[in-house]
């Protein structure tokens, strides 16, 4: 019997009892749908993380002073003084792959308006920083070079701070006090959202670097007690920029060949990758759990195929009497199981795609349809059909034609 003939016989047998066929297929449908929804959700989450890191800037490098072992005990990362403000200018002018470079000094401070106080992060930096973070003002103005030159006592608020201090009111032109120095609010930044670690990006204020150095934290002279943010001209240039910055700083700091760097360069793209991998692992785990339901579905198929073989014992006998070989009946019942699980796989694919889409919408993720996973799920469903259909099919093929013909059904 040809495969096509077996296929037609299978379709006829399955359409004979549609309710039962539907219920049998349901297990497979749910299994496949669950696997696809999980994988799609995972892929969406990964895309989301990627997007978040991209708003942070995947072409960004962060350079911090790195103390040697002895000073590290006392100060920790960022506290040692090895980077200078001159380094920032040198990086900007001498490293070809670097587009922007900005010194960033940060401290936590109380910020007071007339109505409210708020404890937040105060950042002193040059306008380049907000440019390389792609963080424009939503209302008012952002920091500019003039503010920097004149050590202007102006501040740009993150959205969270603006809300905490002024609520619905407009903060522009209002005065806030940071460490007893009055600052004029000139702008509110656009919303940046949450960092991958849950930190609120918008809970921060920016003031000109020169102002920060004179009014907030004086002290170290030429040495920079913070970080340098650098952006490469393109994301592809990140590695080159990192190499150039490292070479330049080693030369400027007169680090002996073979000696350790007195600074540390961190690449956000690496962060992003690590994060994506973690998500990938979790996704795989979830999909594996979903796959269990696929196996349960497979057992459902086996169950119904067993019933089918028993119910159709006489039919099997008749087929054998007119010349069907055991292998013909094996194929016939296998094809039937395969058709069952194949239909289940396709329906599951549809349902899974819808579920994935809804899930992505509900969680505010990017909706991704994992094509390979979908193909895999269909393949697995068919595999399940064959594996679980095999036993009933073997049973059918081993029936004794005489006994089968005598069975009353």
């Amino acid at each position, binding site marked *: *019997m*040809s495969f096509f*003939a077996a296929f037609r016989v299978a379709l006829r047998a399955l359409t*004979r009892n549609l309710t039962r066929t539907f219920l049998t297929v349901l297990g497979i449908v749910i299994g496949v749908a669950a696997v696809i929804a999980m994988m799609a959700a995972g892929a969406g989450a990964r895309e989301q993380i990627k997007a978040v890191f991209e708003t942070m800037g995947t072409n960004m490098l962060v350079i911090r002073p790195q103390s040697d072992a002895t000073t590290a005990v006392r100060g920790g990362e960022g506290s040692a003084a090895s980077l200078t403000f001159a380094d920032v200018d040198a990086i900007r002018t001498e490293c070809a792959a670097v587009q922007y470079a900005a010194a960033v000094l940060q401290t936590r401070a109380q910020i007071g308006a007339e109505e409210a106080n708020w404890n937040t992060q105060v950042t002193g930096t040059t306008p380049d920083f907000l440019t390389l973070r792609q963080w424009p003002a939503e209302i008012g103005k952002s920091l500019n070079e003039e503010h920097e030159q004149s050590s202007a006592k102006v501040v740009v608020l993150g959205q969270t701070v603006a809300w905490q201090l002024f609520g619905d009111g407009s903060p522009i032109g209002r005065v806030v006090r940071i460490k007893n120095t009055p600052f004029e609010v000139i702008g509110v930044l656009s919303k940046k959202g949450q960092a991958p670690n849950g930190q609120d990006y918008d809970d921060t204020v920016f003031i000109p670097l020169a102002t920060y150095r004179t009014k907030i934290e004086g002290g170290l002279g030429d040495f920079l007690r913070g970080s340098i943010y650098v952006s490469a001209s393109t994301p592809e240039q990140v590695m080159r920029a990192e190499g150039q910055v490292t070479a330049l700083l080693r030369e400027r700091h007169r680090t002996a060949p073979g000696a350790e760097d007195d600074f540390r360069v961190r690449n956000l793209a690496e962060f992003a990758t690590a994060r994506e991998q973690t998500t990938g692992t979790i996704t795989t785990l979830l999909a594996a759990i979903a796959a269990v339901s696929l196996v349960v579905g497979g057992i459902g198929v086996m169950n119904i195929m067993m019933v089918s073989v028993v119910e159709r014992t*006489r*039919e099997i*006998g*008749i*087929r*054998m*009497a*007119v*010349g*069907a*070989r*055991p*292998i*013909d009946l094996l194929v016939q019942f296998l094809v039937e199981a395969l058709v069952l699980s194949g239909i289940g796989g396709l329906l599951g694919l549809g349902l899974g795609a819808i579920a994935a889409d809804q899930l992505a919408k509900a969680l505010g993720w990017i909706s991704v349809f994992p094509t390979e996973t979908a193909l895999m799920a269909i393949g697995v469903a068919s595999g399940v059909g064959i594996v679980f259909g095999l036993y009933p099919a073997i049973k059918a093929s081993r029936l004794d*034609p*005489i006994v089968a*013909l005598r069975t009353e059904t």
Partner: protein
Amino acid sequence: MNPKGDAQAGQPVIELAQVTRVYTMGDMELRALKGVDLVIERGESVAIMGTSGSGKSTMMNIIGCLDRPTTGSYRLLGDDVSRLSRSELAVVRGRRLGFVFQSFNLLSRTTALENVELPLIYAGVSGRERRRRAKAALERVGLGSRLDHRPSQLSGGQQQRVAIARAIVGEPEILLADEPTGNLDSQTSVEVMAMLQELVAQGITLVLVTHEPDIAEYLGRVVALKDGLISRDGKHTPISAQAALAKLAANAVDPHASARQGHA
């Protein structure tokens, strides 16, 4: 296997030699056949008779390659088939034999045409040719107008005729019938016998199990079984089922019956 038509009339097509069949159930042994010798020649029509439990069906199953002898040999069309595998026996059944059963054994919810096509599916005959031959076989048994009827939409006699069409569609040398008239009234039984006689006239070898001496009259040889052994084996001239039908038609003033007789 010899190709069809190799053996001529008068040549043995079925040769049973010292065939036994022992059923074992747990530690019980039941000897259903105790050493049967039987030779049937091409073109013969043989009635197997005997009391219930004498082993008729057991012997038919062996002849029909549905079962294998416990000991002894069975040569079918010159080839020893007593040691063939299940798969090989299935092929022999499909190519050489046709079966007619007491309970018709048609697939329900399947049309007459598709039922008749069934053996051809397993013989690997492809779609259009298969339908053509199935249709021809149904026309041969006078059911050309019932192709799309399901078994539940046909009378018992019609169902048995579909079964006969299914048995002959593969043009087998041998037709095996286990009480084919057991579920039919006497009029329909004679009609079925007329049809079988016609097939014998066309050269098929017929082996038929029956309880009824009336039915055995239509066959040219009667083999009686008793307790798993052949107790009697004799030839005679069969009476014509056609003639019997004509007689029935003459007795009953039934225009319907005479019409049927007209083109049977």
